[in-house]
């Protein structure tokens, strides 16, 4: 045994040391594992290739440059049926990113609100939040998506109900918003020349506000005097922008939805599949985030609150300056997972006809071209990249709030 662990006794290296010597054994096992995994991957790919060859199929991504031949109703960029499959994929990707982005924001708002309210001393509020969290956490997301979609479709009137001299439905908010079973139509701003200056003023005022907040913090550290930073910053941004907007003669007009032909035309159309997916994903993920937030807040010991109160801090300051900075350390990492889940869950969009990545490259393009393997590989790669980007961005944020050891 001593000979095996102490190779100085023997002259030179023996092959048996690879197994019996603890210094080499770990390396031996790792090399063997890598070889085994590599061999399995090689066999799997070889198997796939020979099976594809046997069926006379090749692996080629050339179909991406062929015309897609189908139309996509919801598209953030211009798209027609003569555009390529690649562009269709891109349209789907943008739709996925749109619903994922808006979903993450809404889920965060809902989650933080519900999580904090569940800790409320008000019995009714706390119990209502408990009901919300438990109902959404414990029912599969697909059912919620379909349920919200069914609600939007069945409980709202068809566009034809708005027609005629004595319509059964009317537009809401002074005839500017139409809620139908196909979607919600809201006024769409049309920017006229001069709006560019307003946008520039908006950006400049944000930069100005950032400088103000920095100055104010510096002043606080030097003199101990505080200012209502948030409200002043808000006033700077909106005051300046509104001023420029008025000076330029209000360079914006509105396109209002109006019932012409089969549908409402004009305005901005927000389709029901998108709304249903957005709401369902946000409510579902929000329930998980609420629990994460509640857990994070509870993880900060009560003594911290009591100490803050003893120093004379108001409850809002206690929350913002004492509890949340400590709770965020616990909250952020699991919220990253929730954002990733939400993004991946958005691929259930197909069930209600929202054309996302799964509906383009993984749906119609795949069916029409029959290139299942290529489409699935591409789709997986895209989801992987999206998820990695989200998680690295959130990790950067996490690094800024985590415990700083001094």
């Amino acid at each position: 045994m001593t000979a095996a662990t102490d190779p100085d006794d023997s002259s030179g290296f023996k092959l048996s040391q690879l197994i019996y010597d603890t210094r080499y054994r770990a390396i031996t096992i790792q090399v063997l594992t890598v070889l085994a995994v590599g061999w399995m991957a090689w066999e799997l790919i070889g198997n796939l290739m020979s099976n594809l060859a046997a069926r006379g199929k090749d692996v080629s991504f050339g179909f991406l440059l062929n015309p897609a031949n189908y139309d996509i109703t919801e598209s953030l960029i211009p798209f027609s049926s003569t555009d390529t499959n690649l562009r269709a994929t891109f349209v789907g990707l943008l739709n996925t990113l749109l619903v994922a982005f808006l979903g993450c924001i809404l889920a965060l708002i809902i989650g933080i609100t519900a999580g904090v309210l569940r800790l409320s001393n008000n019995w009714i509020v706390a119990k209502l939040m408990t009901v919300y969290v438990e109902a959404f956490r414990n029912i599969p997301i697909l059912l919620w998506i379909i349920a919200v979609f069914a609600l939007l479709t069945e409980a709202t009137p068809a566009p034809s109900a708005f027609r005629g001299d004595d319509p059964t439905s009317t537009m809401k908010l002074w005839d500017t918003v139409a809620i139908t079973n196909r979607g919600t139509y809201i006024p769409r701003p049309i920017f006229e020349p001069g709006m560019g200056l307003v946008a520039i003023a908006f950006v400049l005022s944000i930069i100005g506000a950032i400088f103000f907040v920095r100055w104010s913090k510096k002043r606080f550290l030097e003199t101990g005097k505080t200012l209502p930073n948030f409200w002043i910053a808000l006033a700077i941004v909106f005051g300046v922008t509104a001023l420029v907007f008025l000076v330029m003669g209000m360079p914006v007009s509105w396109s209002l939805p109006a019932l012409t032909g089969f549908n409402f035309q004009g305005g901005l159309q927000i389709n029901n599949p998108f709304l249903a997916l957005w709401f369902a994903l946000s409510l579902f993920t929000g329930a998980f985030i609420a629990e994460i937030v509640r857990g994070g807040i509870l993880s900060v010991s009560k003594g911290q609150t009591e100490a803050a109160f003893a120093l004379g801090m108001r409850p809002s300051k206690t929350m913002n300056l004492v509890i949340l900075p400590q709770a965020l350390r616990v909250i952020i990492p699991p919220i990253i997972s929730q954002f990733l889940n939400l993004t991946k869950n958005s691929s259930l969009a197909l069930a209600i006809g929202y054309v996302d990545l799964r509906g383009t490259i993984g749906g119609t393009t795949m069916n029409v071209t029959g290139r299942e393997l290529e489409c699935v590989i591409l789709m997986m790669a895209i989801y992987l990249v999206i998820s990695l980007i989200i998680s690295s961005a959130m990790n950067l944020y996490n690094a800024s709030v985590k415990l700083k050891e001094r």
Partner: protein
Amino acid sequence: MNKSVFLGALTVAALSAGAAAAATLDDVKAAGVLKCGVNPGTPGFAAPDANGVYQGFDVDICRAVAAAVFGDATKVEYVPLDSSQRFTSLSTGEIDLLARNTTWTFVRDVDLKNEFVGVNYYDGQGFIVPKALGVSSAKELDGATVCIETGTTTELNLADYFRANSMSYQAVPVATFEEAQSQFLAGACDVYTTDASALAAARSAFATPSDYVVLPEIISKEPLGPLVRQDDGAWGDVARWTLNAMIAAEELGITSANVGEMAAGTDNPEINRMLGVEGGLGDMIGLPNDWVVQILTQVGNYGESFERNVGEDTPIGLSRGLNAQWKDGGLLYAPPFR
């Protein structure tokens, strides 16, 4: 995995030796059951009856092939497939035969490595709208919202038709036939478009069919037919000649009622060859000599199957139209049994 690697290698070896390795007919015989891909639910074409047994015009193709192979039309395992799964299921061998109102197109035949064995229903894409909309032609549909099943040829035809006529539309993509109907009935779309036969089937299932009209325009050719994998010509022959036998039997006047009598021998040599009285057609195709007799006894000829499932006396109420025998002005034309 080792087994599939081995099988894959075998297939490559066999192909390089110039012989067809896939012997689906032998596999089906060994399994004792035909795995047949069908539509999950289109009344008249493929839908489970009150006992949960699939019935319909497409289902009859499955039953006919089972009757030809086993002499028993009930030896079928039905695999309900939606439009996006069907070709993958076939190419991976999950099913042996796909009889699911599938349009025969170049890409599906050539690029997807399928083999269409014939056409059992000549169809075309049409539109259905609520009568209250006051639309009488598809040319008036500019700006309409259209419900459409994703991943089907109908989606492509729709895009082509509206583009050719310089009209715009909003597509409401739906995954299944049932979903499309519920969306259409809820008014989430103005128009529902699919093959005219399926429109008739859908309309028959509506609460008040008379409130809906099928527009006169047929915007595409949709030859619907059963298909098999391309790598097995012998199995393709079985499916092809089963369909041909049903069509030829109607032309020659052989029905489920008189097939027993005719199987005893007739003056018509073609009938005798078909029914296995003369010649050895069964041996050539690898089936029992009475295979056509079994098809006709248990399933019936093309006309019988049509009238029973989708004909004018059924709720679907389709007329023969293009699907009449060539002698009657239709397109059905079976090659000779010789």
